[in-house]
């Protein structure tokens, strides 16, 4: 069970993430009204936000150290922030600025960091094999670092998922596979895409433990992830954790969400895990109203500073597009 400090830290991370993304919701629409033009405004392109999925990041990443490697998805902000990727550099990358993580070459789906070790892929499921490789390198070099691969429930029907579980199990690698089941692969619900009900069952096919966390609860995630990370760290092999989580927003910003009803969306908002967690902390006497307000204010000013940094940073020189193809 997490101690009080850890609980507060998990809460703080969730608030940071929520603040960061709420700022992006606003910024993303700059220049995109009245007619939505995906190329317009300071942040062009697709924007996949993770509101509702913060517990996954907070509950898993709190067990990690910077040398543990994460591979994430097209929806990577929550895990990047929770793993300690610099918010300023991330914001600048999202703004396409020279000061960004990838000097404006990556964008929001391609955030890479050496320290902490973080990477993501915009191709569904294809970030998973990389995590297997990280763990292979750790094993070969005798490091007790672990690799954590996050992916959605949609990814679990891709070959890369199955190949990765097989390899990690076969080679007994320290990988924690974390399936974020938000029920929707863009517009296709899981029940129309997946023959079985719970992806955690698929662990059985590769002889590794599979755990289901049914309710997007940060403490439950913390407990399961703690066991899985510890297991990987001590060389006992991979495991699969499936977390039923909620995507409060559309697949990307601007998604009209014609595939789900307003009532469904409202129901998700009503069970917002961040609100729930804050309530639980308050009931437990771990977070006074004042403390909560302080956390929100501190996170907001951190986000403001990051956005300001991003806004005021220079755009990359156009011809620098030709650099960095090769080392």
């Amino acid at each position, binding site marked *: *069970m997490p101690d009080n400090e850890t609980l507060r830290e998990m809460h703080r991370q969730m608030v940071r993430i929520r603040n960061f993304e709420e700022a992006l919701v606003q910024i993303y629409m700059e220049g995109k009204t009245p007619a939505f033009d995906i190329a317009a405004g300071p942040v062009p392109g697709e924007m996949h936000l993770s509101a509702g999925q913060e517990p996954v990041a907070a509950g898993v990443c709190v067990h990690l150290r910077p040398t543990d490697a994460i591979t994430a998805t097209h929806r990577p902000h929550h895990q990047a922030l929770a793993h300690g990727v610099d918010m300023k550099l991330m914001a600048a990358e999202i703004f396409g600025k020279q000061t960004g993580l990838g000097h404006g070459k990556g964008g929001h789906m391609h955030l890479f960091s050496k320290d902490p070790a973080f990477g993501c892929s915009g191709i569904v499921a294809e970030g998973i094999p990389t995590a297997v490789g990280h763990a292979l390198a750790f094993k070969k070099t005798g490091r007790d670092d672990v690799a954590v691969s996050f992916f959605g429930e949609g990814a679990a029907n891709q070959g890369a998922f199955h190949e990765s579980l097989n390899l990690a199990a076969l080679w007994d690698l320290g990988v924690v596979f974390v399936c974020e089941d938000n029920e929707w692969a863009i517009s296709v619900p899981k029940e129309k895409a997946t023959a*079985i*009900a*719970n992806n955690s069952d698929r662990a059985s096919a590769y002889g590794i*433990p599979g*755990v289901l966390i049914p309710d997007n609860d940060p403490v*439950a995630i913390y407990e399961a992830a703690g*066991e899985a990370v510890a*297991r990987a760290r001590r060389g006992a092999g991979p495991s699969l954790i499936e977390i039923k989580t909620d995507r409060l927003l559309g697949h990307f910003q601007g998604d009209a969400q014609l595939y789900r009803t307003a009532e469904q969306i409202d129901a998700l908002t009503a069970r917002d895990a961040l609100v729930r967690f804050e309530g639980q902390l308050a009931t437990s006497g771990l977070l006074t109203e004042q403390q909560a307000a302080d956390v929100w204010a501190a996170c907001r000013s951190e986000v403001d500073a990051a956005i300001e940094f991003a806004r005021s940073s220079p755009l990359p020189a156009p011809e620098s597009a030709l650099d960095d193809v090769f080392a």
Partner: protein
Amino acid sequence: MPIVGLISHSGAARDVRRLTSLARTIDVHERANVAARILAGLAATPDVCVRFLDEPTRIVERALRMLAAQARAGPLDARPLGPLGARNATDTRACSAALALAGAECVITHGGDGTNRAVASGWPDAVIVPLPGGTNNAFATCVDPTAAGLAAGLYATDPQRFASHVRGTTGLSIAVDGVAAETAIVDVALVSDQWLGARALWDPSHLLEAVVVGGDPSIPGLAGLAGILAPDVADHPDAVHLRFARQGRRILAPLGPGQLVPVHIRDCRRVSRDETIELCGPGTLAFDGERQVVLHDTQPARIRLAAGARVLDVAGVLRTHARHEAALTIGSRQTIQGGP
């Protein structure tokens, strides 16, 4: 037409103990397979209909498809009852209550102790046919699913005839702050956690106290520990009250599947029928192995022995039936049998 309930719990046997012990995973296919075998047994008995829990993994629908694919069973009147897309214990309880309201004769469960507790709490008089489908199965004993279906079907057709095969168990009623909270069917534990978290119990160092009925050294969990500590209690309807310590008497406890861990016992004593045990916070109460209620500060919970659930003895029903019939009755829908 007599009604038999069928509740298969989709979330059982998937929690964190897959990582902390050698607990198995019962995947949806295995679960549907068990349900299909139950339905095969039910289909062989005369004119019963089935009402089942509608849950998101659609175990019973899958089972019906499996059965249809065997092409041996005739049409079975099987429909969902209770809340649609049931996800949690509250929904299970609601389904169980709906079965009572519909006049069901008995209910077959496939889940862990938590599933049976929810069923008993939604329908206190329920006659339960429990099949073990959880991580620790203290309540249910191993029975062949087809036999269970057959016995449930026979019972439902003529409950009077098989009344002697229904056994009442002892449970534990829990009141928190004077308000009745729940009836546990196996055990109540107080653990040091302040959060429900992953709900399961696996770390022995968190155990503070426990009250257990039906101790049995041959099953895992606190019931197994109680069975070891008080071997003479096993056949007795009484409970035992265990208090754990940091040091003292050291016992190897079977806390989970494949998980034999040392625990320190401060004391262990029998609880009499009229006694009330008080468990005080801070901590969390776990019922039948799942953290359920957080107790703040010195908030007290009072535990008393109470009527538990009613369980159908499958072997007893089938034996009685066999004594009266030369062979199993072939019902209006023809079926029964194994492989080709």
